């Protein structure tokens, strides 16, 4: 079973992603900030990471930089409400950039695609 780490500070959204992605047949771990995400990435194997950008404390961009600094080759999806971060070149390091929407189809589609590639 493929294992996904979801970094989402909004608790209800975290719950939604957890349920929906579990239903898709993945093992899902939800954490609410970048530090917790780093702790998990250090100690566990993940097949894919979905992260928000704007979060209290360290933001998603810093998280991506830290993960890349660990030379971990995990596909990363940025899942955010902000369009504007697309211009931040650090977000180019991610494998996909998704604008949050009330439909999770795009997110599920991207996850499937990236997991097939790897």
């Amino acid at each position, binding site marked *: 079973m493929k294992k996904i780490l979801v970094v989402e500070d*909004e608790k*209800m959204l975290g719950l*939604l992603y957890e349920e*929906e992605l579990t239903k898709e047949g993945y093992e899902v771990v939800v954490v609410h900030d970048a530090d917790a995400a780093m702790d998990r990435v250090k100690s566990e194997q993940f097949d894919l990471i979905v992260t928000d950008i704007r979060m209290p404390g360290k933001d998603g961009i810093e998280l991506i930089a830290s993960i890349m600094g660990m030379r971990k080759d995990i596909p990363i999806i940025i899942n955010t409400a902000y*369009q504007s971060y697309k211009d931040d070149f650090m977000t180019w390091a991610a494998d996909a950039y998704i604008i949050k929407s009330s439909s999770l189809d795009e997110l599920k589609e991207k996850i499937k695609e990236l997991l097939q590639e790897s």
Partner: protein
Amino acid sequence: MIENYRFQPSNFNPDSPKEFVLLSIIAQSFFQPFSLEDNLLIILTALTSGRGIGFNRAMLFLKEGEKLKATMWLGPRSPEEAEAIWTMLSSPGIGYAELVDHNRDLISRTLEDLQPKLRALSFSLEDENLLLPALAARRKEIILVKDALNEPLVEPKFLDFIGMDTFLCLPLIAHDEIMGEIVVDNGITRAPINTKDIELASLCALLAGNYIYTTSLYKKVVEMEKMAALGEMAAFVSHQLRNPIVAIGGFTQQLLDNPCNPERCQRNLNIIQQEIKHLEKIIYKLSHFLKIRIKEPTPIDFKPILTGILERTDIKAKSENKKISLRINQGSPSILCDPVYFEEAVVNLLDNALDVTPAGGRVLIRACPKNKKWLTIVIKDSGPGLDERDREKIFTPFYSTKENGLGLGLLFVRRIMETCGGKVEVQSRPGHGTMFKLYFKAKKRG
């Protein structure tokens, strides 16, 4: 050996050399708050002050679109008025600042009378048959007109208005663009206009042109800042609204996919309701933030407001297991602010302080006069404190360390403090709590 000199001769002396008087008057523009109108008035004053300096009267034209419009005319209306002004100016004790003030007063008194007549003096710079004075602006040339009655290039309407057949046209140019024009004459003394006066006047015109140019740049920058703030605001609002909307959409979809599990249904409906409440709160807070407008800070007695805050139910609920210690120094004066906004500013900070203070911890509120001018209110928590990075970020719009925080609270406090002429400072170190210091203007006694 040392010799002492004063910075600026405070008194106007008509016997000083022209160049010196001119420079002294123009120096006044550096003492004014940045206002185009005042700076232009200073230039016109420099051009027309006193019997010995250049000119009696000056008219200012400004370019609006493709039109050159007369907007200000400075100078005595009659020989009697001129005599009265010049006598006044040569009386001892008149300083340069008074000179400018006098002219500001003169302009505002005569403006109503003159305005309709000035409005008639508006010329299109694109007019093929453009005449003087506007022609000088279009040609970007300084032009001295003599014997105007016999000069076909002079606009009769204008000649009628000033009633002088000798005048000097000074285009105001900056970065090769026309900003306006100044026309000066000696309508009272009828003295001839000499080359030296023209040279001095051309310097004034250069300055005036640049004042107008920098003001337009400044306006553009302000406009751009507003647009940037608006853009940031729009991004933030869409983010804040999008999270609850995604939750509502997602959990609704689950209901549609899976309608028969009653437990799940109930939970999802609860979540949806909660998120809608969250949306409402966001909209309420945003509109509240955008509404801050303090008309005129009034003296308020803040003591009962501070004690009242401690009685608020929201504060009481938050301060359970925590101690709030309030101390107001004896002899604290009234302060200038709006009572409602004062309370909101303090509640905002107190609310933050209680959030980070652990159970059993303490929040201190201290009010004490700093000096005759200022009173400070300090709110200190016993929370974890902020590192340098967070300290820099806390006043950034929409930055928040709280879940569901909008990141507007401290910005709100700062806006309130700025609108009542005060300021807010923060001191914090990790492990030592955070202290906010509000500086309020103290009401003068007596």
